[in-house]
């Protein structure tokens, strides 16, 4: 691809020297223009992927990563767009396929896409109060009301966190002390039955 032409046309774009493909950090206000330019002038005709990111310690905390593919030149390009107040302009008018990906990024990270035609949740149900892929959301989940209110009224059912039984069934990686095998739920054993 023509890196120079892009950086000249959009001077605020920064080439990040990606290890696997050309990578740019773009200004989110220019995002839609850049995606359109790449599609029309440089042949990146297929949206390979769009996903949200929670960078935790960076400011801004949230961002969007876009992978575009050129079916003619057989190459990818990656765009990093940081959010401004947790918002990014939509690109679903340029690549209609972005519609669902943006809904997913909203659902999972709470990133709002300005101008999105259908800003609903997609994987979780509409009334779900959290954004589960954020780094501060626990793996097991948080107790929330059951989606069907009429069922919950009769049964008192809630959506409970996953049973972790004294630790996830996974080693946490990283430091050895944190990765040691953990005991299962110790509130019951052979002598003391499960309450």
């Amino acid at each position, binding site marked *: 691809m023509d890196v120079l032409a892009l950086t000249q046309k959009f001077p605020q774009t920064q080439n990040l020297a990606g290890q696997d493909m050309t990578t740019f950090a773009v200004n989110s206000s220019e995002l839609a223009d850049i995606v359109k330019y790449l599609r029309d002038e440089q042949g990146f005709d297929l949206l*390979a992927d769009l996903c949200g990111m929670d960078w935790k310690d960076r400011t801004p905390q949230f961002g969007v990563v876009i992978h575009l593919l050129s079916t003619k030149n057989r190459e990818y390009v990656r765009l990093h767009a940081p959010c401004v107040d947790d918002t990014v302009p939509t690109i679903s008018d340029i690549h209609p396929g972005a519609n669902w990906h943006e809904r997913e990024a909203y659902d999972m990270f709470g990133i709002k896409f300005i101008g999105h035609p259908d800003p609903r949740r*997609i994987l979780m149900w509409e009334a779900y109060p959290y954004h589960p892929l954020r780094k501060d959301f626990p793996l097991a989940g948080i107790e929330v009301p059951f989606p069907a209110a009429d069922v919950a009224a009769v049964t008192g059912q809630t959506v409970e966190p996953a049973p972790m039984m004294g630790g996830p069934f996974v080693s946490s*990686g990283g430091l050895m002390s944190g990765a040691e095998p953990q005991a299962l739920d110790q509130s019951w054993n052979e002598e003391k039955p499960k309450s």
Partner: protein
Amino acid sequence: MKTTKEISLGDIAARSEELRGESMTLNMGPSHPATHGVLRLSLELDGDTVTKCDPVIGYLHRGDEKIAENMTYNQFVPYTDRLDYLAPLANNVAYAIAVEKLAGLKMPERCEAIRVVCCEMARISSHLLGLGVYAMDTGAWTVFMYTFTEREKLYTLFEELTGARFTTSYTRIGGLTRDLPEGWLQRVETFCDGVLKTIDEVDRLLTRNGIFLERTEGIAPISKELALAYGLTGPNLRASGVAFDLRKDKPYSGYEKYDFDIPVGTKGDCFDRYLVRMEEVRQSVRILRQVIKTMPGGAWYAEDAKKIFLPPKAKIMTKMEELIQNFMLVTEGPQIPAGEIYFEAENPKGSLGFYIVSNGGGVPYRLRIHGPSFVSLSILPAIVPGNFLTDISSILGSLDFVMGECDR
């Protein structure tokens, strides 16, 4: 004796006048045989014609991306089985290659060749199911029985190779779980002969079958532009006339060494999508035969990647260094350097992409899974309206999606 009251044509016309102008909302699914899993279509109907289609997904959402952030790279391999659970081997391979690219690992030739065998067998297995249930969706029951007989043979081969019929978890970061069993490749060769016969049989049953043609030809055509705009990949994109296949255009795992053709459709309708899958099975057999003929010897895992691949069991039991290495790898995970990678593999359903961000260490910071079925379903609101309600099973079957990968 005549008991029924005679109704004049005028009465019927008057009654149908009353019925007109009222649209109906119909929920198809989430548990419906034609939706191939837990997909719900919220449809708006005008008589028999669909005017609006809103797919509701998420019934199979398990939070795979969140789970991946909380476990080591190798521990995530079984979760990849459950993405496209009709081609688990291909998912295993795609995931392993993504992480290896991030680690900058070069796989030995034998490992790459075995992975190609895995991918192509997974493709045949997935397409056989796709074709079988597609025929069933359009009213031909027999084809399903034929293709499932072949899949049964494939599952026997998978079991021999990986120890499991369905959830294979065959790859590891930096290699495989085990080498090929003795004489297994000859049995794959025998299977190849059989599957071609079955495909010919299916060809005779469906390709010129009047009912099948009426139910598929010209139904829900996807133009080249629409397919690209929605980011379709795999057979669905190729059926629309875009000759793009990652195995040819962005070769991985040594695909550039093998000779095969890419079937491309012209109209992008349901029938074209069927034809593309049929031909892909034949091409996969072609690839399989070439790999079997040229299967290289040597190592089947990256021997120099001491911080990524587990040492052989015999050495763990006898040597101190390998024992420590094994212990560190199991507890802390394979050590992958910091960086980011996006890798897409040509899976049976389309491009399965993994976007991995690593801060170093044994756990990914973020692992994004791009499932082709998610994309295939996102095009439904654009292609379903205007078709009859009965065509929906035909359209869904032709897109060949799987919910495990769509909802993740």
